[in-house]
C-alpha cells in the first residue's frame, strides 16, 4: 500500500494527489500538521524525512521524499503507457528533468510568496515575487512558441508529462502570493488544458475547469 504524508494546502503534496488520481492508484493520506502545528519539524517526522519537508511517499516500506522525485517514481512504476515519463526517450527525459528542476524554482519563489502572504512567513517578499515573475515569463514564452509548433505541453506535443504536473500547482496558487498571471496568456491557456486532463482533481485554491 502507498502512504502519502500530506498537507492539504501544500501545492507539492497536491501534485502527488493529482497524479495518483490521474493514474488511478489507491493510497492512504497521512495528514501532517504543517501549519500551524509545524509537525514536519517534529521528531517523529524528522525520522521519516531529515529535511523536515513534505511530501513523503512510503510504498510498502520504500520511502521517498521530494515531490519531483516521487513523480518520476510513480510514473515509472504505475504508468503502463510510459507517456508521463518516457524512460526510453533520452531527449524527452532530459527536458522533463530540466523542467522538474524549474518547478523547484517556482516553489522557492511563488510558493514562498504565498507562505509570506497567508501564513506569516518572514522573507524578502519583493524578491520572491520578482523572481517568480522572471520564471513565469520564461515559461510563458516557452509555451507560446510551443503552441506555434502545435505542442500543447511543456515537453511534448499531445500527451502531458510529469513536467506539466510539477509546474502546475504553484503557478495556479500564485495570486495568493500577490503574483498576478494576467500578463501570461500562454500560461493561462496551458493551465486550462491541464484542468481538462481526465481524472483531474482540484485542491483548495485551485478550481475544476468550468467553475
Amino acid at each position, binding site marked *: 500500500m502507498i502512504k502519502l504524508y500530506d*498537507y*492539504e*494546502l501544500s501545492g507539492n503534496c497536491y501534485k502527488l494527489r493529482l497524479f495518483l488520481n490521474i493514474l488511478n492508484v489507491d493510497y492512504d493520506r497521512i*495528514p*501532517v*500538521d504543517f*501549519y*500551524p*502545528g509545524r*509537525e514536519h519539524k517534529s521528531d517523529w517526522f524528522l525520522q521519516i524525512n531529515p529535511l523536515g519537508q513534505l511530501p513523503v511517499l512510503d510504498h510498502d516500506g520504500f520511502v521517498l521524499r521530494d515531490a519531483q522525485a516521487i513523480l518520476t517514481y510513480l510514473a515509472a512504476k504505475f504508468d503502463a503507457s510510459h507517456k508521463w515519463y518516457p524512460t526510453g526517450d533520452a531527449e524527452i527525459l532530459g527536458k522533463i528533468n530540466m523542467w522538474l528542476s524549474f518547478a523547484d524554482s517556482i516553489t522557492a519563489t511563488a510558493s514562498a510568496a504565498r507562505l509570506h*502572504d*497567508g*501564513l*506569516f512567513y518572514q522573507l524578502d517578499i519583493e524578491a520572491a515575487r520578482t523572481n517568480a515573475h522572471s520564471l513565469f515569463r520564461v515559461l510563458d514564452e516557452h509555451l507560446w512558441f510551443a503552441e506555434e509548433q502545435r505542442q500543447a505541453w511543456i515537453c511534448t506535443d499531445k500527451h502531458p508529462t510529469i513536467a506539466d504536473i510539477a509546474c502546475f500547482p504553484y503557478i495556479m496558487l500564485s*495570486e*495568493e502570493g500577490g503574483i498576478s498571471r494576467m500578463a501570461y496568456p500562454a500560461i493561462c491557456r496551458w493551465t486550462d488544458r491541464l484542468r481538462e486532463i481526465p481524472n483531474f482533481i482540484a485542491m*483548495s*485554491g485551485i478550481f475544476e475547469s468550468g*467553475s
Partner: protein
Amino acid sequence: MVESSADQLPSQLVNDPAWPGRTVVDDWQVVGSLDQIEVDVNYQTVLLDVPITFNVTESREVRAWVNTRCGSQTSSSASARLKTCVQYGYIWVSLGQPTQNFFEMPEYYEPDRRNIHAATIRVKVSAPRAIENFLDLAHFPFVHPGTLGEEPFTEVKDYDAVILEEGDEVLAQKCLFWQPNAMPTATEGYEVEYVYRVPHPYCAILYKANAIDMNRMDVVAIFVQPVSEEECNANMFLAMIDDQNSDTAIRSFQLMIFAQDKPILENQIPKRLPLNLRAEMSARCDALSTAYRRWLHKRDVRFGTIPQ
C-alpha cells in the same frame, strides 16, 4: 508580522474623524492564539491600522503596547500600555477602554468538548467580508462541493435572522442545508441544522448538528483581527464533540474549507463591506447577511465597511 510605527497613540486617534477605527476602539480585538505564542517573545502586529507589539509572560500575563517612532521604547511607559485579556484560548487587545462584557460562548467550558485552534490565516479582504462569507449558506455547493454542499442540492430554506436587543448580537436559527460530508465525523450526507451568532462585529460562531449525536451541536467560530481596512487575520476555532478524529485531521478539514473560500474572498469587490443595503443584490437566503449589515450600521462600525 508587519513592522511599522504609528504617528499617534490611539487616545489621540479616537478624536481623529478620519480614522475609521474610532467607533470600535474600545472593543476587544483578537491578535493571536495562545497556543501559537512563545513565552517572552515580542510579537509585532497591526490592529485597526495601529502597529502594536505584544508578549506573554510565563504566568500568562499579556502585555501589549503601541509601537511609536522611537521603536518599542514606550513599553516601559504605563500610558502606552494597552488593555489585554485571554479568552477562549486567544489573546485579545483593546486600543481603548473596554466597557462591555466579553461575549458568551458557554460551550467552551463543556468538559467533553475538544477546543481546537485550527489556524490563523491572513486574508486580503476586510474583516466584515470574511464574517459575511462565514455566515453564507448559499455558496456551499459551489465553493465546497463534496463536503459542505453538492449540486443540485442548492436550496436554502427560509430561516429566521434577527438582531437581538438583549445581548446585542445577530442570531439566525433553523437554517437547514443538505451536506454530503458535513464534518470529519460524517459518514454520509444529511440535512444539517445550523445556528449562527454574530456577537461581535468581527467574530461569528456557528453551531451545527453533530454527525454522531444529533441532539448536540458542534461549534465552529471565526475570530477575525481587523489589520487594515482591506486585510484581516482569520482565527478559526472549533469546539467539537468528536472522539474519533485527531486534532490534525480536524484542523486539516477546517483548513481545506477555509482555503477554498480564501481566493473568492480575496477577489471580492469592493473589499470593504457596503452597509447600504441597496449597494449589493440580496435574495431571501441572504437574510442573515442583511441583518449583519443592519447591525453593523446600527453600531456605526466603520472599519472595513463602506458606511451608508
